[in-house]
């Protein structure tokens, strides 16, 4: 990537190959990287599907990262409070609690918007920082592992069979969260293709006055869209904490909630597009890690690549819809 900027094509090609090709097909990396693809793509897709529902209606939930954190805290709390009892009902209860946590966190900007006309972009974004502070607090306090010798962080749910979000197929990366993400893609596709609610969301985004004329209540649309996106982000957080991450720690969140915004737009707010964009974005995460390892690139370089993806996508939209004009007409 940087080679390209300097005009050195062979090293640019090498970097691109390292990010987009080697994780899947180089035998040194593939065995580790292939399952990771689904592990990373799962939560991103799940969150992005939720966000796209709101984005289509012109409701901008930017705070999925916070809803993701709250989902993880709520879900993990259920498991940690029941430890060490074993029951088949524990995992489903955690999923519900995770969804509820994200839902409640997203409902705050939604209700403020409905009743006080606040801007949901600002409120939901600021709530991310509140969520991060709650996360820091509970990982040192309420949810701290009593047997952890005073170190911050909760018990590891990987060691708690009833609560562990295990792989459905061994070494595939396919855990329950990934399955849920695929299910969400299918349901969202159906929602916008055939269902009244999807139609209402689309018309509210396309022509708000026409939606109002049709009898669609804007407050209900706001609450539904924010609630759904929070719910899915919360579930993503739960699946992550119960699976790949295993525990609540101060550095639990890794930016999936923000990456999902890019993925939603990269997928043109279309569920199938989001599926593909999510896989691509997961690849840049993994490829980026390999590139950091092999080329000694700084960690921020992969965020730069992701940012550039969104930037050029938006630029493409500008140039397909508008054209340059000389001054003076």
């Amino acid at each position: 990537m940087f080679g390209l900027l300097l005009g050195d094509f062979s090293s640019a090609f090498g970097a691109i190959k390292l990010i987009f090709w080697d994780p899947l097909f180089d035998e040194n990396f593939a065995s580790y990287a292939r399952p990771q693809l689904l592990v990373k793509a799962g939560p991103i897709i799940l969150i992005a599907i939720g966000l796209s529902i709101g984005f289509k209606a012109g409701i901008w939930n930017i705070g999925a990262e916070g809803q993701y954190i709250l989902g993880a805290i709520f879900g993990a709390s259920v498991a940690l409070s029941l430890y060490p009892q074993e029951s088949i009902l524990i995992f489903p209860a955690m999923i519900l609690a995770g969804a509820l946590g994200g839902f409640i966190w997203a409902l705050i900007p939604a209700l403020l918007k409905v009743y006080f006309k606040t801007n949901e972009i600002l409120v939901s974004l600021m709530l991310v920082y509140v969520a991060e502070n709650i996360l820091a607090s509970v990982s040192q306090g309420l949810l701290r592992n009593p047997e952890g010798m005073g170190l911050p962080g909760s018990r590891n749910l990987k060691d708690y069979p009833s609560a562990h979000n295990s792989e459905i197929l061994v070494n595939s990366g396919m855990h329950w969260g990934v399955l849920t993400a695929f299910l969400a893609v299918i349901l969202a596709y159906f929602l916008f293709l055939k269902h009244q609610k999807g139609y209402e969301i689309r018309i509210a985004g396309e022509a708000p006055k026409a939606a109002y004329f049709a009898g669609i209540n804007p407050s209900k649309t706001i609450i539904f869209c924010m609630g759904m996106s929070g719910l899915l982000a919360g579930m993503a957080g739960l699946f992550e904490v119960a699976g790949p991450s295993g525990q609540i720690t101060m550095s639990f969140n890794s930016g999936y909630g923000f990456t999902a915004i890019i993925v939603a737009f990269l997928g043109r707010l279309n569920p199938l597009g989001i599926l593909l964009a999510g896989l691509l974005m997961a690849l840049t995460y993994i490829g980026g890690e390999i590139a950091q390892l092999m080329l000694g690139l700084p960690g921020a370089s992969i965020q730069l690549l992701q940012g550039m993806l969104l930037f050029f996508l938006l630029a493409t939209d500008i140039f397909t819809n508008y054209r340059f004009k000389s001054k003076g007409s």
Partner: protein
Amino acid sequence: MAEVLLQMDGISKSFPGVKANDKVSFQINSGEIHALLGENGAGKSTLVKMIYGLMQPDSGSMKLGSENFRPSEPSKARQSGIAMVFQHFSLFDALNVAENIALGMENPPKMSDLSEKIETVSKSYGLPLDPKRLVGQLSAGERQRVEIIRCLLQNPKLLIMDEPTSVLTPNEVKTLFETLLRLKEEGKSILYISHKLEEIREICDFATILRNGEKVGSCIPRDTSAKQIGEMMVGKSFSSPSRKTRVFGEELLKVSNLSIRTKDFFGTSLSDINFSVRVGEIFGIGGVAGNGQDELLSALSGEEKTSPSTIKIFNQPIGKLAPDERRAIGMRAAPEERLGHAAAPAMTLIENTLITSHSEDVIDQWGIIKFDNVKEKTRNIVSEFDVRTPTLDNAAASLSGGNLQKFVIGREILQRPRVFVVNQPTWGVDAAAAAFIRQSILNLASNDSAVVVISQDLDELFEICDTFSVLTNGRMSKSHDIRSLSSEDVGLLMGGSDLDLKNRDKA
């Protein structure tokens, strides 16, 4: 006098799938008011846009005076002495008149000089206008004056006016015509686009008639009857709406003490509106747009909720019901703004049909949309109301204004509403389509419905309505039997005076 100002020679312009103009030739002389006539989609706007430099012809040539003329952009056209007043004004509500005019100029002078110039021009052409007033507070007629003065300051040779009288009161039309005649005396030419044949016969010296992109004839309007001109436009004879005498039944819609404070800074508050409409009656509400028409429609459609008993249907209070709940009991509305309000621009006709359909035959109990049935409904609207569209999957925005209006009206009327409220039903629609829409409103009323028609087209109201009142400044006049009113009476009503009539009849 016979000096040719603009010569159009074999102008053709195609868009994918459509030939908008096909070898159109005509000429405009200096000091002539030249009418350009045709139905919606006949190619008038395309032709005018090419003269004004917004588009370039595929073939053919234009000559301005003795020079070849092919403006590549509007500023070039303006430099050559061509000015245009658009049907839709491009003015900023929050700026004053002088600031708005300065924004549209290539090299605006100092504000104080400009104000002086505006006052001089407005005096000499009989267009009273205060340069310091906010545009948001002006009536439609005054806004048009802003646009005209903006054009006149450039001292044009040819002034193009697109549907200039569609938003004006009869008095404002008179003022406008005096101005146009004064311009003509000065040797300026005017290209006048309109549907209103009577106006064209009154003021234009020559008319060119377009149909399907071709020039199909020309005439001297004064010596040709409106019927003959109309038939040239549509290529066939059409009948004006026939009204059967209807017997009115019981009171169906009753509005009492309706007052609404507007939330829009430039909106109009409604105060104490009272009227009722009987079964079979068409109730006409005249007055210039911006006097509370939009607010009244949204109160009746349910977009603006009021206290329950201010609006009643068959004595059932409905003021609190949402638009879809009102549709369920048979009350439907069609707002004035077609794109963005009555229809979603980027959505297909099928999806737009769904905007006002909520019944079980299109959406099942699980909320699944039965698209086959919606498609059938759409097909029905398109065929019954002669909506011209390539497919049902075309976006609403791709239809011409008249066709979309037929779609919007048809969508509501085919549901056989008991109460139908419509705002500006034939605004910007050609004569044949307007006649069709009016006829379907009449038919609806004779099928035991009550209809409220809000319109600024007085001829239209006189053609179809039984009862008439005027909405001025958010207040409504008493209602009168339309047959008892003379045009002076209407003028008085529009001026806001009720007193003289009150003694004469107590309708």
